[in-house]
């Protein structure tokens, strides 16, 4: 009965949000909330009285700063997705294929001491980061984490489709995340005739879809992996260093 009522309301709202996604009041600015089982697991650590060292790799979030520092933890913020769009990183590999310079990227970013972090919030970074940076970044994260430290990452499933929107994640409560759609960016490109065309793109696009085996390979140096399959085409992964 409840599911019939839910479907009925979906028709009238025109929303595709599942039970895990609840339309937030600020619907106009594309804000959604969702429950996160991975975050719920992490919240048990955040409740600890011992100060944790947390690295947030998503967009700068006042909510996350407030949530974590309010509990006495230390927060480091670094938006790797924005950093990866630095034009000077573009180079070519031995086969002449355009790639990003991962060595330079890692010398400019994630420059911390080894074994510094208890928790890394990766969010959806791996899905949107350039292919040439994914493995080097995960390798660096492994070295930056303390033994027993935890990393939370989200991965889209195939059902999400190639145009899956990119979100910023803001922690609201123990297991509730607010998701802000990354704003469209106006891009000017020259066409073949030399005339400038203005297009509006999302700025970042889903680069690939990892299946379970890919994810296990990506985190093979870590000691354990826990998957949470959500109904909104997101696979949450909590890994332990």
């Amino acid at each position, binding site marked *: 009965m409840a599911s019939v009522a839910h479907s009925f309301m979906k028709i009238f709202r025109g929303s595709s949000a599942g039970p*895990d996604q609840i339309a937030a009041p600020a619907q106009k600015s594309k804000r959604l909330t969702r429950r996160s*089982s991975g975050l719920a*697991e992490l919240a*048990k*650590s955040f409740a*600890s009285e*011992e*100060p*944790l*060292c947390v690295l947030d790799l998503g967009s*700068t*979030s*006042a909510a996350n*700063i*407030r949530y974590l*520092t*309010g509990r006495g933890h*230390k*927060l*480091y*913020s*670094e*938006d790797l997705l*924005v*950093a990866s769009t630095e034009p000077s990183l573009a180079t070519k590999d031995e086969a002449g294929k355009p790639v990003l310079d991962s060595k330079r990227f890692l010398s400019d970013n994630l420059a911390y*001491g080894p*074994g*510094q972090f*208890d*928790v890394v919030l990766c969010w959806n970074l791996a899905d949107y980061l350039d292919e040439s940076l994914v493995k080097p970044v995960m390798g660096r994260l492994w070295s930056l984490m*303390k*033994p*027993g*430290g*935890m990393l939370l990452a989200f991965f889209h499933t195939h059902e999400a489709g190639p145009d899956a929107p990119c979100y910023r994640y803001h922690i609201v409560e123990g297991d509730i995340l607010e998701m*802000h759609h990354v*704003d469209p960016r106006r891009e000017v490109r020259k066409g073949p005739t030399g005339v400038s065309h203005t297009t509006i793109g999302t700025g970042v696009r889903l680069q690939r879809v990892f299946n*379970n085996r890919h994810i*296990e390979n990506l985190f*093979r140096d*870590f*000691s*354990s*992996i*826990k*998957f*949470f*399959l*959500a109904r909104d085409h997101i696979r949450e992964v*909590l890994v*332990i260093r």
Partner: protein
Amino acid sequence: MDTPKMAEFAHIGKSVVVKGDLTGSEDLYVDGQVEGSIDLQGNSLTVGPNGQIRANVSAKTVIVQGKLEGNINATERVDFRKSAIAVGDVITQRVAIEEGAYFKGKVDIGKPESPGGRSEFKTDRETVSPVANRAAAGTGSPIPGVTGKTPVTDIKKV
């Protein structure tokens, strides 16, 4: 934007370049370039949209609309507006960040560094994770259901 009235603030215009240590006992608005350090104990610093600062900053409040590269020690609050690009560590009591602002660094919320230069914050250089401590004392993993000793994959449908 929030350009203050000239009479209320000392003002560094966008064509001005300052290299060295800036100290003062009044509020300061910087829309130009400053390289060195800025010390405005008890007063506020506003970095305008054209402002480019490469300096460690001490002030009561710091509002950033432009670029700031350096550590911020604000006794009251730090405010990153949407056009802000800030790289460095922040020690303050309150932080406000507008959507779109870019920040890279550490945030410590609490009592800022005392004038004597000694921080009241503990260092981060712990070699063993508190999470790991808990794991060692308990089931071997801070995550219930995961042993943590050998690679384990656990799939749950939620």
